[in-house]
């Protein structure tokens, strides 16, 4: 008798798929031309150097080829992507001033409620512009800056100029160049020396317009011995045309500082998510990444940590769930550039219903990093035989003092484990449920409570069948 398989229900997307009527104030023409970039720059009142930066990035974009590795990106036609969609709303610090339909969207996503209960500041971006930003007054008094990138570009121009796309230069890859040319929105955070932001800040990015791109830039500077937890969320309703997300995150973690960067990504299944995230960490500094990838049609996302200062540390915890029609190519990279640096990478991937999950990583230990330590652990769970799960780590180690370990496993829910739990009086359905929840538990426990709850909702488990 054939044994029925565990059935893991698809991610419930109703909440995210509610579309608003497109009431944008302005949309650029689709495609990517110098005129479009000049137009975006003029509308944003960019300083001259930023216009030049954008135009130079366009040149680089046109010179670079698509990557010859990773998921197939041939579906992406930049001629059909609208790179700038200005919502009919001005940036405000009061939800009452946000247009009703946009406010309703963020209400459904729980952002204003979370702001009241568990966040020290919120940024909300709708299509290409930030429509709401707030920060608690006591943080402002301590010198913390949390604002949208456009405001930062004008009010803190020198800081932005010194850091903008210095970690991820446009020449890094084609979509970094695209970002440099058309970036819009995003958040800027500056935490002064010695200041500890005890309650998280959160930015939420919502793309509503069909066939559009979102290119927000997140720039965070945590000065010496300061600390911050920053949360990023993103979603979009599903359309029948391709949407593109090519954001860029640059994190500067200075000596003795600590930054936790948490993301729950739940883009719609028509989204090409080609995002770039990078952190540089100074002496005794710590970067912690917590990353959940659930949505999008195609994702290429590999947060990179450059451990530049002695004793700098990186912790990366990630979970990826690929279902029907999804090709999620995720992972992490760590570059050890100084003595006694250490990193711990732990990931879980799940694939089902024809989904493809790829874990890809790179650990580079330079000869300037004696006594570097890195541990990589990757576990993959496949829920049927029409899906794919691939693991592709690379280690590149120079010198004789590094201590590097890598472990990976792949498989399905074991019948023995089910049988063992059933022998202890647990029903088969509950046993399967326990195993899958246990599989993602190392990630869930790293998330803030409300996000852990969201992740449990995302991985909604429904079981059927009996042991064969």
């Amino acid at each position: 008798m054939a044994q029925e398989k565990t059935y893991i229900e698809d991610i419930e997307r109703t909440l995210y798929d509610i579309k608003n009527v497109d009431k944008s104030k302005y949309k650029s023409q689709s495609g990517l031309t110098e005129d479009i970039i000049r137009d975006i720059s003029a509308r944003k009142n960019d300083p001259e150097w930023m216009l030049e930066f954008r135009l130079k990035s366009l040149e680089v974009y046109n010179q670079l080829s698509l990557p010859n590795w990773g998921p197939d990106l041939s579906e992406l036609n930049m001629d059909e992507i609208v790179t700038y969609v200005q919502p009919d709303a001005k940036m405000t610090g009061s939800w009452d001033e946000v247009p009703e339909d946009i406010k309703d969207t963020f209400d459904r996503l729980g952002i204003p409620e979370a702001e009241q209960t568990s966040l020290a500041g919120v940024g909300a971006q709708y299509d290409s512009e930030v429509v709401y930003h707030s920060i608690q007054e006591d943080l402002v008094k301590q010198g913390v800056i949390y604002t949208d990138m456009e405001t930062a570009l004008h009010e803190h121009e020198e800081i932005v100029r010194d850091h903008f796309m210095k970690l991820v230069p446009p020449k890094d890859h084609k979509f970094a160049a695209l970002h440099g040319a058309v970036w819009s929105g995003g958040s800027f955070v500056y935490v002064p020396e010695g200041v500890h932001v005890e309650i998280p800040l959160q930015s939420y990015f919502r793309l509503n317009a069909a066939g559009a791109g979102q290119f927000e830039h997140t720039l965070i500077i945590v000065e010496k011995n300061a600390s911050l937890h920053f949360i990023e969320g993103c979603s979009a309703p599903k359309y029948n045309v391709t949407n593109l997300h090519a954001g860029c995150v640059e994190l500067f973690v200075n000596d003795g500082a600590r930054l936790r960067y948490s993301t729950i990504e739940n883009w719609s299944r028509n989204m090409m998510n080609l995002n770039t995230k990078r952190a540089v960490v100074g002496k005794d500094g710590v970067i912690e990444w917590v990353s959940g990838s659930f949505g999008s049609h195609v994702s290429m996302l590999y947060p990179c940590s450059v451990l530049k200062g002695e004793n700098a540390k990186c912790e990366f915890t990630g979970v990826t769930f690929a279902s029907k029609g999804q090709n999620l190519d995720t992972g992490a990279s760590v570059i050890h550039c100084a003595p006694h640096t250490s990193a711990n990478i732990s990931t879980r991937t799940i694939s089902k219903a024809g989904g493809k999950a790829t874990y890809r990583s790179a650990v580079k230990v330079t000869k300037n990093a004696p006594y570097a330590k890195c541990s990589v652990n990757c576990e993959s769970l496949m829920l049927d035989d029409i899906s794919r799960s691939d693991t592709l780590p690379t280690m590149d180690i120079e010198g004789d003092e590094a201590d590097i370990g890598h472990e990976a496993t792949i498989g399905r829910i074991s019948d023995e484990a089910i049988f063992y739990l059933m022998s202890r009086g647990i029903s088969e359905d509950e046993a399967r449920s326990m195993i899958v929840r246990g599989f993602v538990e190392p990630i869930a426990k790293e998330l803030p409570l409300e996000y852990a709850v969201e992740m449990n909702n995302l991985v909604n488990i429904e079981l059927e069948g009996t042991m064969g």
Partner: protein
Amino acid sequence: MNKEIFSEIPMRTWNWLGVNEAVVDRDLLVESQNLDIKIEADHQEKMIVEYRKESYGIVNINIGENASLKLTQLQLMPQDCGHVNEINVVLEKKAKLQLVAVETGAKSFASKVNIILKGDKSQADVSLLYFGDGDRSLDMNYVLEFQGRKTVGNLEVYGGLMGASQKIFRGTLDFKQGSKQAKGYEKENVVVLSKGVRNRSVPIMLSGEDDVVGNHAVSSGKINEDKLHYLMSRGLSPAEARKLVLEAAFNPVLELIDDEALRQEIDSYIKERLENE
């Protein structure tokens, strides 16, 4: 540049890592020495292939149903020449392969091994020893492809690197759809003895089948200081202690070489190079 791509990994990754393909001097690929081996059903064979002069060796093997082959391949080239070799194996139902490979010679070499576990319940056990010193370049690309049901593939790799040697080892376990109840295991242990070494490892696991068990592990580190101190406290010099620890690390492969004289030759070869470093 008179170079040519000799082998590629089954799934590409970032180009900046320089591991997507093995590139060798085109001259080395001009003329190959081919060896075609067919092991008839229900037969058991043992073979030794030795490489001792500059060459491009290709060994093609088909192992019939319920047959087995133990192949020992030793690359003991002089240290001033280049070398490439490849092994292609297809295993039929219940066929078994034991491959013992030693790569210790040549100024620079590239090897590729492609093993297809085609028949149900076929099994491949691969043990590889590599050793690099001086400014030698070592490039290895091993792929175990699981096609049949209940197939088993084990890939155990033991390496030692010193001087300014550079090494890339790529090991792939590729579970094709339909390879139900297949089991694959890969591990690479690397002992690094010098600051000038560059050590790259790419342990790949690809799966289009859920009913499989796949594991891989890589560890890379310097020689165990506690072991060295213990041996030195027993009167061994630092060099002798290092030799002994490395020999112990290589022993899982060396002990699989049936020919005592060859085993001694490899042992002496490594010892001599440890002393000269």
